[in-house]
């Protein structure tokens, strides 16, 4: 079965020999399930995100990127899905691929995109007290002074 036949109306194209498709956020989970079960894309290689804030000609803020691979035929497919402020949210794909767990946590940590249905959506690389999402384009390279204002852990000094 061909991808264009199975998903009529979806934007499927190729760039530098890589097939990619754009999916609406409402149909993301169903599309990925179909790709996994009927097209044999059994491995989720990566989940990442791009913040298109200053990107020329971009209409949406965040682009979620799912890199899929078929371990039998060695095909690859890039699935993209766009979400916007406020509260960018996409469905979690942990039910399909358990490997998505940490990858989705990293996207939440770095971009502030929520994953609906993720059982353990906590920050993974940055400390829990960190408030910003640093890979967003409106976050400066040198940070917002978090290092200087980070609360010092108060330790009890034993009485002499």
């Amino acid at each position: 079965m061909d991808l264009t036949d199975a998903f009529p109306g979806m934007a499927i194209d190729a760039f530098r020999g890589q097939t990619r498709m754009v999916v609406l956020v409402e149909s993301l989970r169903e599309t990925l399930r179909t790709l996994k079960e009927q097209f044999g894309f059994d491995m989720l290689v990566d989940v990442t995100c791009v913040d298109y804030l200053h990107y020329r000609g971009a209409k949406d803020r965040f682009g979620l990127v799912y890199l899929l691979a078929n371990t039998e035929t060695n095909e690859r497919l890039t699935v993209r899905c766009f979400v916007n402020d406020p509260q960018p949210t996409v469905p979690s794909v942990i039910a399909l691929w358990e490997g998505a767990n940490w990858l989705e946590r990293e996207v939440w940590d770095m971009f502030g995109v929520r994953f609906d249905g993720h059982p353990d959506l906590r920050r993974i690389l940055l400390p829990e007290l960190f408030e910003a999402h640093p890979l967003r384009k409106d976050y400066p390279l040198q940070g917002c002074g978090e290092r200087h204002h980070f609360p010092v852990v108060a330790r009890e000094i034993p009485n002499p």
Partner: protein
Amino acid sequence: MPLHPLSPAGDLAHDEPRPYVWTMNFGPQHPATHTTLRLVLKLDGERVVDAMPDIGYLHSGFEKLGEHLDFNQYVTIADRMNYVSPMANDVAWHLAVERLLDLETPPRCQYLRVIVCELSRISDHLLCLGAMGLDIGAFTHFVYAFNPREQIYDIFEALCGARLTNSYTRVGGLMYDASPKAIAMIRDFLRQIPKTFRDMDRLLRRNRIFIDRTRGVGVLGRDEAIRRSCSGPVARASGVPRDLRKDEPYLAYRDFDFQVCCADEGDCLARYLVRMEEMRESVKIIHQAIENLPSGPVNVGDDARTILPNKEAVTSTIEGLITHFELVMTNRGFSTPCGEVYHATEAPNGELGFYVVGDGTARAYRARCRPPSFVHFALFPHLIRGHTLSDVVAVLGSLNVIAAELDR
């Protein structure tokens, strides 16, 4: 027998009170973690009921830096990701960039890149296997495994002047061509390295203690390995015959005769043996590459306006001078297409890929690194559940988690 996790997500904050379960902190500065990563273990006696990895101690914003450095500058950051095999990271980064720019490097460059990739695979596996033995108690094995890494560092020094942070590749080529001295050193290395493999085999392969502590420990099934996005030696030890050098041949890997090493057991011993065999295959590849090394230029031509010309061309020719300034001036540089590419390479640890977004400027709009260590460390609670505390270091060693790549 693996026990059930306390809670589905491994979140220790929400489980029911069990007074006999101890909580133990492992790391972030424990000698057996090698680098800074932390584990919170829940122990029932000596048995690990659950483990919660806590990472991020070495997070240094590499991906954010990638949006502010140009394609040639960022290779210095790529070096520092997996510092055990920096050359493999350099090659992975520039292959992704070259795919975005649609550049084809000359054959000599491709062969030299294959050679440095395979040398760094040997270097990475030697450290991984040596340290795995060390953690389990085989100190001598570590010393024998670590010794040839010095020779590999010497080769890298002869190739590019740096031992650890090589930054050897450039967009469309390499920093320097390989000198005859470097090639002689590689030939020398190939002659001597089989002895190291024999020594390592004699020390551990039939060692009763080593086998008892690794066989059946941390078993990862085939389907699980795929579902949990494993790649590289970890997946191959679980019976997933996936090797990007064969499956999606990049560089000149099509030209070489080598085999993909697999095992079915999926335990720590299988991961050890797969890495051991992979080093032998790497030696075969380097042999073929060094004997058939094509002559010719190592970089794409100066007029392609993508590679920095060498200093002699800059100071003696007007074309070289113009190309140099076109590339280094702040308002000039590469012209990239507005597109997004992903290029994956078979790094020593697994699939190392870069997702590069170009926006027409000389810098990446987004430089995402797909780190194999990150994906493999997520496996850890699953692998260790039900095993004893002393198996923690065996499993950790067999996954070869490099914290700088884990946290980036």
